[in-house]
């Protein structure tokens, strides 16, 4: 597959950009020993990530496909454990287990992609049937609901996107896809009732960020200011008052794209967008070129997952998407997220290399 030779290089480029971005926004830079700084930890996770990437890419992906139900069971169990025994943060959410080292919701993204790929590739004759649609929706709604209860709106949305993409790529008819979409929209009032107050405010502030510049709309407004202040070439490496003086909240996680743009300007922003476009386009190319069904579905699900995350995150940085707490893959600070992205990429790379041979 000559079109995707560069695949690990693209990931490496994104990884380096991410490390630079975390370094420049590290709140503990120069204030803690290296290994305790955000950059230090992110670097460690990156090294670990590459190890995992290498390891996973050496394992034939069919091995994971065969684990199908086992993976599904682990997802559901770990999400239940989180709900009852997980440790949380100060807004009352519970996302972590095992001493704050593992976020099961993050792993469930990859797990659900593998499970859906396995589940759907086993019954290609049923594609387009209502029966299969209902089965997959039932199987998807359980982890989605559990994640939603943590609550982690962003990840829950990713799971829904995975399921929706699976329907789309497996050739379900447009009217059925539209029906599913209508069903999801119909569920919004129900979701609204379940949402936490801070989540409602976040969503509302997306529609009117000016209404409360010091409250919930603050993030979005500051993020736009940060990107705008960066101008065409940016203010330069480690400069930029918006993120350095912390007017921009979550400047090393959710809003790292804005911090990057403040330093590197429009040019820097375009570089990130271009790298992501290249990466996602490559993933889909691999999907087209890989001969077997499991590989195709898995790559397209991973591709969709990235498209969705990049679109939501960059969009919310620019104030055109609601603030949902979805990190920017490879760039945002966060070990779990980086780690599972590397697992996913390892599988995609294995698919690309194995070319469907067992």
């Amino acid at each position, binding site marked *: 597959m000559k079109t995707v030779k560069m695949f690990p290089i693209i990931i490496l480029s994104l990884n380096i950009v991410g490390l630079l971005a975390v370094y420049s926004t590290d709140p503990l830079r120069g204030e803690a020993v290296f290994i305790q700084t955000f950059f230090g930890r992110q670097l460690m996770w990156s090294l670990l990530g590459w190890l995992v990437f290498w390891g996973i890419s050496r394992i034939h992906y069919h091995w994971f496909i065969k684990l199908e139900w086992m993976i599904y069971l682990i997802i559901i169990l770990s999400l239940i454990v989180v709900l009852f025994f997980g440790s949380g943060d100060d807004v009352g959410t519970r996302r972590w287990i095992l001493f704050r080292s593992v976020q099961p919701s993050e792993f469930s993204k990859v797990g659900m992609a593998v499970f859906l790929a396995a589940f759907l590739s086993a019954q*290609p*004759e049923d*594609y387009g049937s209502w029966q299969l649609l209902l089965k997959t929706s039932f199987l998807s709604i359980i982890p989605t609901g559990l994640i939603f209860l943590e609550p982690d709106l962003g990840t829950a949305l990713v799971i829904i996107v995975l399921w929706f993409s699976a329907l*789309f*790529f*497996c*050739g379900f008819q447009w009217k059925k896809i539209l029906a599913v979409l209508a069903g999801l929209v119909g569920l919004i009032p129900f979701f609204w009732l379940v949402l936490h107050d801070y989540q409602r405010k976040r969503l509302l502030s997306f529609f009117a960020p000016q209404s409360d510049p*010091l409250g919930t709309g603050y993030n979005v407004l*500051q993020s*736009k*200011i*940060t*990107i*705008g*202040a*960066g*101008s*065409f070439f940016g203010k330069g490496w480690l400069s930029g*008052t*918006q993120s350095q*003086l*912390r*007017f*921009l*909240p979550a400047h090393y996680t959710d809003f790292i794209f804005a911090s990057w*743009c403040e330093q590197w*300007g*429009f040019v820097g*922003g*375009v570089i990130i*967008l271009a790298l*992501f*476009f290249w990466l*996602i*386009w490559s993933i*889909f190319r691999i*999907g*087209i070129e890989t*001969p*077997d*069904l499991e590989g*195709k*579905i898995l790559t*397209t699900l991973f591709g*969709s997952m990235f*498209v969705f995350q*990049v*679109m939501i995150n*960059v*969009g919310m940085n*620019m104030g*055109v998407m609601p603030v949902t707490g979805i990190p920017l893959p490879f760039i945002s600070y966060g070990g779990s997220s980086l780690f599972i992205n590397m697992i996913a990429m390892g599988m995609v790379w294995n698919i690309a290399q194995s070319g469907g041979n067992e």
Partner: protein
Amino acid sequence: MWNEKPKIVINHRIELFTWILFGIFVFLFFNLWYLSVLQSGLYQEKSERNRIRMIPLQAPRGIITDRYGQILAQDVPRFAAVLLPGSANPEKSRQILEKTIKRKIEEPLRDRYSGEIILASQMSIEEVVMVEETRKELPGVMIEAYPKRIYPPGEDIAHIVGYVGKINSEELKKFGQTNYNNEDVVGKSGIELNYEEFLRGQKGYRKIEVDALGRIVRILDTSFPRFRHTLTLTLDLELQRYCNELLAGKSGVIIVGDPTNGELLAMANQPSFEPNLLVDGVSQDEWNELIENPQNPLTTRSLQALYPPGSIFKLIVGLAAQEANIVSKERTIFCPGYYEYSNRRYPCWRKAGHGRLNYEDALAQSCNVTFYTLGLELGQDRIIDMARRLGFEEDTGIDLPGENHGFLPTSRWKRQKIGEPWYPGDTINLSIGQGYLLVTPFEIFQSVVAISNRGVVYTPHFLKVVQNDKREVIERTLPKVKNRIELKPDIWERLIRGMTKVVVEGTGRACRDLPIPIAGKTGTAQNPHGNDHSWFAGFFPIDNPRYVFVVLVENGGDGSGEAAHRSKDLIQWIYDHRENTLNENG
């Protein structure tokens, strides 16, 4: 493979999706372009506004000293805790602050014009240290030093120096909003108000860069505030204090000044108020208490209160009589203890009568009968005219705000306001300073100045010198003739001889045994509400006067008593402590 159809479908959908993908990225690209290229200017400006704060630094006011350099008013640093807007919840910050400095803060939270919230405005240096030590718990809280006005002599100078306070909306309008803002302090009364222009300092500012928590990252630029002028007054603080002591426990006024140049040395008003309390702003209750106090401590009696002058007014009647040539040296008038006019008896203060008195002796003994006679011969117009010439019912030009005028009754006024003609009885009352006639103590003072200086009156003033911040004199109040009363020299001398006799053998005998001869006149103002008010006014040295004084003791009985005795102590004090000033020339 066994079924190619699903794979074809998937590839088909992927091709389709590539277009959607392309669309998404084009959308993101153009949004980025819009923000960081098209709208960049707008957001750069917003970003600057995020981080840069201008903190105005309150300017200290000029120092006010007495003539010997004693501090009357100055600014001392005080500290306030200020919360930058949007950095934290004000109530919560207030609670943390209270816990930090271990006391309850009573004042309400209030907004400043720049949006900052004042958490506490009266903090000691110890409390500032406590706050600085727990800086991290108080994000967005800044400690600010600001100048606070203090008046070391307190009550003793309250009516002269006045006090400052927070500017109100009317003052803001008056001074113009470009130079003042609603946190400024302005002079509210006295010298502080009158010389606001000099006393007001030059404001400074501090341009700071703050982080999102409002913590100061660095100071970009500072312009230090400074005071511009120091005012030296003609006031003699020690003398002023002594005058207040003399009036202790009484209501009354003592004014002391130099007739040769218009300098005022003391102006004691009792009761007084504590200006230091008013600077911080008092509560409505405390303010009402001050205003409704029946003793009116806020009233500057010397300039604002009206009293009948009593016999002191005989000096004016005497001048009018001398000018009218109705008191030749040979003329004597017999006093049987009363004066009879159209079947009414007007009493002399001495019921037994003074017997036969010439003009000078009549002044010395303050014989009412003599002055009834002279008054009726003169008619009220000539008396009022002489009073006008001596400056009654006219601005004295003193450099303190709020001066009142006395009241000189005329037949026209009586016809219009009371609806009655002017009766000879009214003239009789006027001749001894009673009836409708009212004066301020300062008007009496000015008339004695005119007599002591033989007709020349200088504009009275408290301001002596204005110095700039380099201690260069930029303004000096020079003697300025305010009024020149043209009378034959021997008219003055004869009146002064009478005033000398007042002390030597007349009603002012209390001042007889002083080491320095003085000229004076007593007065007893009838007071329908209680005991008579006691007046004594005079000057010394007689031939080359350097001191003019007026003493008024409310409800002090007749003038030969309370007022004259206090005058004696006053003169003795001046002789003991300020002897050098008595011999200087000019």
